């Protein structure tokens, strides 16, 4: 009798074994994902850094020169890989679209959560979800056939350029920023609103003095998230921005972004050539930027816990 119990206790039970199996499975899955991420970084970095190490492009020239023609060399014999026009283009469309989208998104979110939580939410929630689901090529196509002619007629120029890109990105990031703002506002505890009203605040005072103020970190996260989407968006922007690797002089002259140059150029260069490596450098820059966006989001989100 005693031996039987002893043996049972010493042997691994079924529960222990299935626990072990589960751990192995999730560990393997995690390890695979980590490996994939690390190898993507390694691959992009090794290709992207080749521009600077094998093709001898100066890092500062890459970031500050304005002539993008990596297939040919300049007087010093290094490829003409000045990425400043694309960097400016990417940041311009990102920041402008975020600046336009933020007030609309926050206003919509306030309407959905504070002003008309029943009707407003029922109508606007599916609308924003639908907007998120529309493929970017459709946005680009609409941009091409509606926004570009509109810009051409209203502001002159060809219509292609940063302004058209901004409009398209504004519509594209609006639902993302809105739905994340809604989450941020909904996370504000009900008792903050009650406390504010009980102190004699009007509804509007409650919204801007308590609800918006206490959800500010969440709202900031939403905006940065929208910016990182805008920064990484390729197709729709490429269709309306004009794709001229020139430093933009105004909002309606053709320009380009890091992503648009990548999608335009990838198929037209030979693996290992200086022109190809230069594109990888742009990709590396994009990757680093999205890393920065992620870090910023993490940092803000940590402050915003209730």
């Amino acid at each position, binding site marked *: 009798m005693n031996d039987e119990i002893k043996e049972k206790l010493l042997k691994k039970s079924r529960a222990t074994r299935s626990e072990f199996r589960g751990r192995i499975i999730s560990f393997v899955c995690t390890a695979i994902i980590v490996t994939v991420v690390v190898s993507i970084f390694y691959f992009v970095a090794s290709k992207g850094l080749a521009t600077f190490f094998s093709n001898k492009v100066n890092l500062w020239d890459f970031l500050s020169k304005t002539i993008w023609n990596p297939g040919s060399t300049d007087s010093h014999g290094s490829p003409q890989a000045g990425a400043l026009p694309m960097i400016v283009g990417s940041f311009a469309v990102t920041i402008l679209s975020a600046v336009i989208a933020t007030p609309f998104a926050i206003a919509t979110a306030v309407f959905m959560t504070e002003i008309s939580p029943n009707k407003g939410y029922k109508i606007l929630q599916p609308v924003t979800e639908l907007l998120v689901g529309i493929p970017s090529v459709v946005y680009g196509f609409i941009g091409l056939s509606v926004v570009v002619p509109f810009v051409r007629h209203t502001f002159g120029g060809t219509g292609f350029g940063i302004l058209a890109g901004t409009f398209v990105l504004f519509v594209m990031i609006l639902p993302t920023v809105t739905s994340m703002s809604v989450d941020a506002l909904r996370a504000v*505890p009900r*008792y*903050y609103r*009650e*406390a*504010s*009203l*009980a*102190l*004699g*605040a*009007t509804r509007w*005072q409650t919204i801007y*003095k*308590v609800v918006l*103020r*206490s959800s500010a970190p969440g709202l900031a996260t939403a905006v940065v998230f929208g910016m990182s989407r805008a920064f990484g968006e390729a197709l729709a922007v490429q269709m309306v921005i004009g794709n001229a690797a020139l430093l933009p002089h105004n909002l309606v002259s053709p320009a380009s972004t890091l992503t648009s140059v990548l999608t335009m150029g990838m198929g037209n260069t030979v693996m290992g050539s200086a022109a190809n490596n230069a594109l990888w450098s742009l990709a590396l820059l994009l990757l680093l930027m999205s890393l920065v966006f992620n870090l910023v989001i993490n940092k803000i989100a940590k402050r915003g816990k*209730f």
Partner: protein
Amino acid sequence: MADERKEIISATDVHLFYGRNEALKGITMDFRENEITALIGPSGCGKSTFLRTLNRMNDLIPSVTITGTVMLHDKNIYAPSTDTVALRKEVGMVFQQPNPFPFSIYDNVIYGLRLAGVRDRRILDEAVETSLRQAAIWDTVKDKLSESALSLSGGQQQRVCIARVLAVKPDVILLDEPTSALDPISSGQIENMLLELKDEYTIILVTHNMQQASRISDRTAFFLQGDLIEYADTRTIFLNPKEKETEDYISGRFG
């Protein structure tokens, strides 16, 4: 006991419906100035609901209908012309869960004054000190007014919430189980504070804690299933209740 004290609030035949469900079945009662009135009764008896009718916080719930009159200073607060914003400045409220805003202690206390448009730094500073002193927490927090109110303990947070209400200088303070989330020591401190405040304010308190009601209140009302069963001096309620339900409840036979 000065029985001739002025009545500050008198409710007459207040019915309240959540949709079709009648939560208050015709409450008629008066509250006297500078007294502490305790509302007791089992959970769901309507005492908190009634408390919230006194500063119209129930208006925030969409399905609620209310009939009857509640006179504050001889004005019906349910008259169509009532400004609820002004009303809530006269009738302040402290909630069950300490709910300071995620701002600094200073900003919490001056919230109501800022709403009223007070900008003068001197007035604000003074109001912060006076209200925090009244709430018996000035000595604890005077050196960290710019720290977040959320960094305080639960009892301290509740006192900051009370200071926040006091800063608006209401006539009446409603407290909805203000100590039920706190430990006995913090509760005791808040009880002492309320006893000191009643010289200047009228205090109406919902509590589940019968000892608390007997310790600090002047008059006690017993609610049961939406009805006001008995309302009298606290001493009478606890020593010689007239109704059998009251006696059963306070002696712990049900509820």
